[in-house]
């Protein structure tokens, strides 16, 4: 998986993270909200979490990103229930903001030093 492809994917996810709140806040057809928010929830947290890892293959990257995103969602939602703080929108906002920050950092890093991601 090339660094250029990875940077483009991360840029697309940053765009998704910006659009997703709008699809929730503005009156839009639900199908658009479902597609955008689902993509953001299922991709962005995982992509941010593994941003510093090297993946030689796109398929492995996509699979790990989806699974880690789901794990973050499962853990976040469950812990918020356990501690008596059930606010899905706030939780999504926090996860989205953290993902956004990590992805911005990674895009900057790739842009400055394209071959530096995670390899020894």
């Amino acid at each position, binding site marked *: 998986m090339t660094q250029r492809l990875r940077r483009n994917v991360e840029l697309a996810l940053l765009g998704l993270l910006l659009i997703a709140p709008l699809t929730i806040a503005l009156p839009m057809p639900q199908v658009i909200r479902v597609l955008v928010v689902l993509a953001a929830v299922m991709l962005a947290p995982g992509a941010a979490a593994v941003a510093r*890892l090297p993946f030689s*293959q796109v398929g*492995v990257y996509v*699979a*790990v990103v989806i699974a880690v995103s789901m*794990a973050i969602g*499962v853990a976040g939602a469950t812990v918020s*229930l356990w501690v008596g703080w059930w606010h899905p929108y706030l939780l999504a906002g926090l996860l989205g903001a953290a993902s956004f920050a990590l992805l911005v950092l990674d895009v900057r890093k790739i842009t400055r030093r394209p071959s530096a991601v995670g*390899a020894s």
Partner: protein
Amino acid sequence: MTVRFALRPTRPAYVPLHRRDVIPRTPVVAWAVLGAALALWVIGLQMTDLDEMDAWGLLSALPVIWYLALALAAGVCVYAMVRRGPLHQPLATAGIGLVLLILYATTSILEDAPRLAWTYKHIGVTRYILEQGTLDPSIDIYQRWPGGFAFGAYLADLLGFADPTEFAAWAQLFFAAVLAILVYAIARTLSTDLRAAWIAVILFSCTNFAGQLYYAPQPLALTLSLAICLLVLSLLQGNHNRLGCFVENALGRGRVDPDAPMPTGLSNSARALVIGCVLLLQFSSTISHQLTPYITVASILVITALGYVRPWWLVVAMGVITLAFLIPNLSYVQDNYALVNSLNPFANFRARAEGVTSQHPVKATIGALAPAISLVVGLLAITGVVQRWRRGGSWPAVIVVAMIGSPLLIGLVQNYGGEAQLRAFLFASPWCAVAGGWLLASLLRREARWPGVLTAGVVALVLSLFVPNFFGNEDVYYVPGSEVQACQWLADNTLPGTVFVQSVPGFPARCSADYYTHVGPSRGDTPNLLSVDKRFAKNDFTSDLPALTGQVYDKVRAYGKDSRLIFSVSQERYARAWGLFGGAAGYERLESAVRNSQQFRLVYENSDTRIYALATA
């Protein structure tokens, strides 16, 4: 950093192109066929009438062009695998995507509510979380392992659904797609052969008969488990230790594996991040499902013992997470279930709920297809592993054998409610598919035409077994939307503590957020007339009606004077499939006896459901 792969055969500097990789062509016709398959599928859905379902389930209701669409889509997939020239990834992706759509979206589109009555157990828990915003571990085991439900409620809120019933039907397509991606990624981690990975995906997607791809914690946990294996194999893989070396050499080695992937070197910080991701995945799996984390630990433990995972303590940390979550729940599990059913694996794998009536012959035939699928998958896996081993791929072969074997450890202690066989197959099937992919892909390198024919034959065989198995019971699995409405009416119009008594299983009785106030004293499943004594199903209601109706009254009254007795179309189909009360006619006679009795009164009726209260209450 030290790279620990000195003994691993690395890829040769020059890898000759396979003959098949020489002549690239644009598969215009294949794209056209794929488009035609999509159009035929859409038209086929329009022509399908669910009322035409009989004992063969959806098989008899689907028009010929639906089957044609599936055959064309599968044909394009096979063509993408076997055609000369470099594998056309967009075509393979589109082909498999359409096969997944046809197999796993058909019921979601045709039916007006999520299929499988037991899906509603999970919908009820999710609705509880959505309404209450909290958990109550005293209610049931689901509230103690809430990960999947919490995530479902989180998604429902974000996607704008007030009720998970509105999207739960699509869970099977979602999980089928995500698992397909994971199987592809795992196959790519164990072999550089692209064809092997795509064949593994199609084998896995067309043999998944375990029936676990629905709105439930199991497919979520399976996803997380496979992701752990993927991360470990792709980024934390170590070189074999003495034990691993012994196992690898046991059947001889020496040849260089042409398909061995290159290892990925990691910095220490990246390695720490991977370990963190693995532990996060294990944590999420542990809080979501009772069985999966143990199978994951067992799998990783085996390959760690052989030296294929570094660091070794990762599996210890995974085990600690798993046990730390079990300990506070241990007494609940011991009180309500059994931590150990039997130490006899044969007994555990054989364990099935005993029936007292004869299953409908068509259903018995459809059920017999599952072992046939297992047999085909098993043969492909064994042959694939042996063949890969002989070609020098000893470490991938050992890893796949370990991963196939680990789920069988369930049977050492647990029958998992009679589902140990199914769960073992579910966890082993991705690895069997990977091994099957190795076999067919290596044969496809030959110049001859027969490997392509063989690949087409294998895909045709597994589809011809899987489709009847998957759709042949749809008459029983179909839950009409009107029954979900009836369930909601019950929840809205009865007091807490009113027990919903099903005539037989099959009604979505736990669809509402207050599901736990309408179950029997054990707080387990919603009771039915056979809960206490299954032999009651032997009565065909042709004679001695007053006494039998009195027994029905007593059974319902035992749950309280306000209990409700439910009859519905889905339950009638269940009775017919399992030959309860002598089949569908017997079930009608049972309801007729209840309707004509002075002891019951009809309180609700819609197109598919009738609900009775006790008249003397």
